[in-house]
């Protein structure tokens, strides 16, 4: 059952390299023309609301609703910032989108800027995407040269400029207010909310921050209509989604599918199942911040609601598959090390808690765990959740809770045996 590709339809075009000429030849920038000619900004916002598009960066917040928070009567300039800081472990779809089809994103940004009244937009691109940033710069220059950017775009009277702004290596800059702080030339430390970016964002002016993939959906919504878009997938998680599948599957990669796809089909049909004939042990469905799932969850559909109901989340769509050679305690060590490294350090619980979790898990992994460590870990997690400026603290805590929930006996074995049962024979 082949799904009609929308965001990645270029994959089926032989020799496609994403230049502006190719993009236009295949219908590119038509949506922009239609948006500027046929829509007033409030109508565009309505259309996006009706489409049901939800943010694809990790939070899944309804896009049209976010745009609607921009106060149209504010005397301050409005900004649109594209979040291309893709750093959620297991996620690699935005990188593909900017490297292979940059104009889709640019078109999305121009339409979105028109919708919210923004005349200066930024693409915050993580610093490691050296190639991607270069591709974007070239594409922006081409778009400017053809009149899709700059003054009086397509004779509409609408002005917009877009600049690429590179980050420098910090996961927390993917958090929208951490991103804004970084864009302003500061440490990427998230801001207290409220006020939210729609009211006080970049340079304290009304700002929308949208993920790359989210913005790539916009031209399609305009071109083919919000009702068409809303008909794709479950009614509360509409539209195509790019799932980044990695780990122990035969065919890792990005898969564009509706969110009605089941976890089973995603892993066993699209990604061709577990490699080397092994068994599925665990799967993280939405980037490392998402609580882990197991075989019992394979029939879940990959929409936001279903995954949340099962105690996990849709998150960034990064699906990490682990087979039965994997030591889950080691997984805990790797994941906790990540959050320990990435905590910005502002809030006490996160700064100290991410380190404490990591050190404890590392100690258990090394065979020096104590019986009381498991309940200690759970209490540390509880003390880290829901009490900080941003949710990195929660993102660090919830996965650990889930590993203990589903694989507690593995942790107990490490403590009891004072060694890792997978030592010398596991995947690590």
């Amino acid at each position, binding site marked *: 059952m082949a799904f009609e590709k929308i965001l990645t339809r270029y994959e089926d075009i032989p020799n496609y390299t994403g230049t502006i000429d190719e993009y236009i030849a295949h219908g590119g920038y038509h949506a922009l023309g239609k948006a500027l000619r046929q829509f007033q900004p409030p109508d565009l916002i309505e259309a996006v609301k009706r489409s049901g598009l939800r943010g694809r960066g990790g939070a899944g917040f309804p896009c049209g609703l976010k745009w609607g928070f921009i106060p149209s009567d504010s005397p301050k*300039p409005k900004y649109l910032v594209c979040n291309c800081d*893709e*750093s*959620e*472990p*297991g*996620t*690699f779809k*935005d*990188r593909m989108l900017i490297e292979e089809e940059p104009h889709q994103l640019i078109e999305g940004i121009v339409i979105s800027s028109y919708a919210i009244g923004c005349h*200066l937009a930024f693409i915050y691109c*993580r*610093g*490691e*995407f*050296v*190639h991607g940033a*270069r591709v974007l710069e070239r594409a922006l220059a081409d778009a400017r040269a053809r009149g899709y950017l700059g003054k009086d775009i397509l004779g509409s009277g609408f002005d917009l400029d877009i*600049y690429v*702004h*590179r*980050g*420098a*290596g*910090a*996961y927390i800059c993917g958090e929208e207010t951490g991103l804004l702080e*970084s*864009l*302003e*030339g*500061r*440490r*990427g430390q998230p801001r207290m909310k409220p006020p939210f970016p729609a009211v006080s964002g970049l*340079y304290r002016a009304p700002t929308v921050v949208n993920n790359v993939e989210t913005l790539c959906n916009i031209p399609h919504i305009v071109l083919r209509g919000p009702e068409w878009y809303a008909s794709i997938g479950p009614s509360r998680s509409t539209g195509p989604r790019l799932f*980044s*599948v*990695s*780990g*122990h599957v035969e065919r*890792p*990669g*990005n898969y564009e599918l509706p969110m009605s796809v089941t976890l089973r089909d995603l892993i066993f049909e699209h990604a061709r199942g577990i490699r080397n004939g092994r068994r599925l042990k665990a799967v*993280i469905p939405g980037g*490392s911040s998402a609580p882990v799932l197991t075989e019992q969850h394979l029939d879940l559909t990959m929409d936001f609601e279903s995954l949340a109901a099962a105690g996990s989340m849709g998150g960034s769509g*990064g699906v*990490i598959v*682990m087979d039965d050679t*994997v030591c889950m305690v080691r*997984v805990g060590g*790797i*994941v906790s*090390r*990540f959050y320990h*490294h*990435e905590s*910005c350090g502002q809030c006490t619980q996160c700064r100290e808690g991410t380190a404490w979790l990591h050190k404890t898990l590392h100690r258990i992994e090394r065979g020096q765990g104590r019986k009381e460590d498991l309940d200690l870990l759970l209490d540390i997690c509880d003390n880290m959740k829901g009490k900080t400026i941003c949710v990195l603290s929660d993102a660090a805590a919830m996965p650990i809770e889930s590993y203990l929930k589903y694989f507690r006996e593995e942790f107990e074995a490490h403590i009891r045996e004072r060694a890792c049962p997978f030592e010398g024979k596991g*995947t*690590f």
Partner: protein
Amino acid sequence: MIPEETKRRFDELTKRYPEKRSALIPILHEVQAKVGHLSPQAIEWVAGYLGLSAADVMSVASFYDMFNLEPVGKHMIYVCQNLSCSLLGAGRLIQHLESRLGIRMGETTPDGLITLKRMECLASCGTAPAIQIDGIYYERMTPQGLDELLDKLRDGRLRQSKT
């Protein structure tokens, strides 16, 4: 320390932003590329250029993984140590690099050629394990692949990215 034409480029760059301070991180990237690493003098130059205190600029620079405040080798090799890459052999890559180069991750070879650095997810999970050398990604890496790259690096035959 910074040539006039680079400074002029910074002047242009700064004009993009409603607030000058926004140019800080892009400028730090370029200064680091020019000077080799963000030495105290480099940081003071940037601070002077943007009208910020040196402590302020150092506070920002030290927050980010890509900025090196200590001298580094001519070539930076980033190795992703996050989950998907670890599931697919990043640990073996790290062992191989350390044994072949005789240094630990985070260190620089005595001849000043290579610095090894552990990084977190590089968004290359589908083509894991991934490394990045001087801005260029090398994916589906193996120990043999590493050997070929290191040989090319030594011979100066490895393609370099600009920044």
